[in-house]
């Protein structure tokens, strides 16, 4: 809030009603579980993921996360268009928390997964949007975390690359890792996750088996309509 509006409010002695992005939402995930968060725009899905990823603290309540997390909330955060693909991979890897040693080790894997090839030495402003996204996804997915948090980022690149990303996440699940994701594509969600919670306006509407929740959500008369 701006300083002057804050001052004005204080002088008038009024307070705006508090807005809660999330209210009374509780859930627990065991190791190897996978949970999808579904709901309309503005439901608080991204806020929830941000909280779990440790980007911010809740005003009330607790969040406990045990294990190394990697959050793919937005692909290419921290990418700079004047840096080359290689430089961006290093920068992004360090931002996501990889060590220098590890980054050097897996650099070739990252590049080959992304399919960027020789363009890796070019500034990414010369890349197509799809290529940038592929490179960003490739760095993030090679983090090898214990808990993976994904916000709507699986729909990147062309169909072939999407299939590759999907395979990668599925493989991650098979290795007994924990997944928390947000997606509007219910087909994908049903394949990737066992459980789901449905949020609307920050409230928990329903929690349970992924198929039941997505069906209930699909049958819900849309609020925007």
């Amino acid at each position, binding site marked *: 809030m701006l300083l002057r509006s804050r001052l004005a409010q204080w002088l008038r002695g009024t307070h705006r009603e508090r807005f809660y992005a999330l209210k009374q939402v509780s859930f627990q995930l065991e190791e190897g579980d996978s949970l999808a968060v579904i709901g309309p725009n503005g439901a608080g899905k991204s806020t929830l993921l941000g909280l779990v990823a440790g980007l911010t*603290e809740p005003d009330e309540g607790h969040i406990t996360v045990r294990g190394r997390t990697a959050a793919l909330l937005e692909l290419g*955060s921290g990418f700079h268009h004047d*840096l080359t693909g290689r430089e961006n991979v290093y920068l992004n890897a*360090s931002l996501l928390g990889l060590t220098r040693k590890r980054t050097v080790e897996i650099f070739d894997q990252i590049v080959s997964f992304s399919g960027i090839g020789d363009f890796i030495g070019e500034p990414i402003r010369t890349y197509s949007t799809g290529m940038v996204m592929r490179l960003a996804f490739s760095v993030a997915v090679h983090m090898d975390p214990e808990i993976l948090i994904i916000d709507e980022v699986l729909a990147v690149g062309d169909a072939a690359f999407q299939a590759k990303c999907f395979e990668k996440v599925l493989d991650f699940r098979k290795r007994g890792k924990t997944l928390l994701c947000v997606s509007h594509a219910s087909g994908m969600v049903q394949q990737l996750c066992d459980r789901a919670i449905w949020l609307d306006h920050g409230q928990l509407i329903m929690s349970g088996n992924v198929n039941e929740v997505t069906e209930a959500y699909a049958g819900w008369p849309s609020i925007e309509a």
Partner: protein
Amino acid sequence: MWTGDYPFLLSNLIQKDFKIRYRNMSLGVFWSLLNPLVMMAVLTFVFTHVFPNARIPHFAAFVLCGLVPYNFFVMAWASGTTSLIDNANLIKRVSVPREVIPLAAVLANAMHGSIQAGLLLVITLLSSIPPNRYWLWLPYVWGMQIVFACGLSLITSAVNVYIRDMRYVVESTNTVLFWLVPVFYSFSFIKPEYRNIYLYNPLAAQIMVLRDILLDQTAPNISTLLKLTYCSIAMLLAGWAVFRLLKQRFYDYL
């Protein structure tokens, strides 16, 4: 929780700043040298030909002793202050430790500052002033200046998230500072009653110590050095404390 590699992250952020600043410039790093050289030439012209100033020998080297620390401080503080806003997308999407962002901004400017410090040494030698053993103090003085800028930037960058007017406060202060620190005049011109204000200003203190060492070839004044050290470390501690407190709500305000 972010459990990554701090040195790796810092070096990548500093390199990024360095590369994007110069990559598309034909003259590259020479821009770091050109600005102080031009300023030095202009100020030297003004104060030796417009307002002739017989009291200060080696005026070019003298004024550069002021300009180099001043340039570093102004650039580091200004870019440190806006660094969190400039990297809002990072703060909101990656759980990278927040302190690193303003620190990297200051340290990147310290790299440019080091290039300019090299220029200062070259100009000193060209003014036929020989090196002396007190030069060994230079890295320490330079380090304290960086510590001070880090502390101050931690505070103003965090405040700038909540009160965006902060950057204009910083920019205006920087303009005024050019006249308030002894860039183009000597500390010896200052009346005794104002001297303490200068001594407790790390930027002014650094300029004075630099001139003692480089131009007068004398040992730096120990009490000035101590004040520089106290103020810089106190600023860093204060910066750390303020930043810790304010960073909790960055996500909501960015």
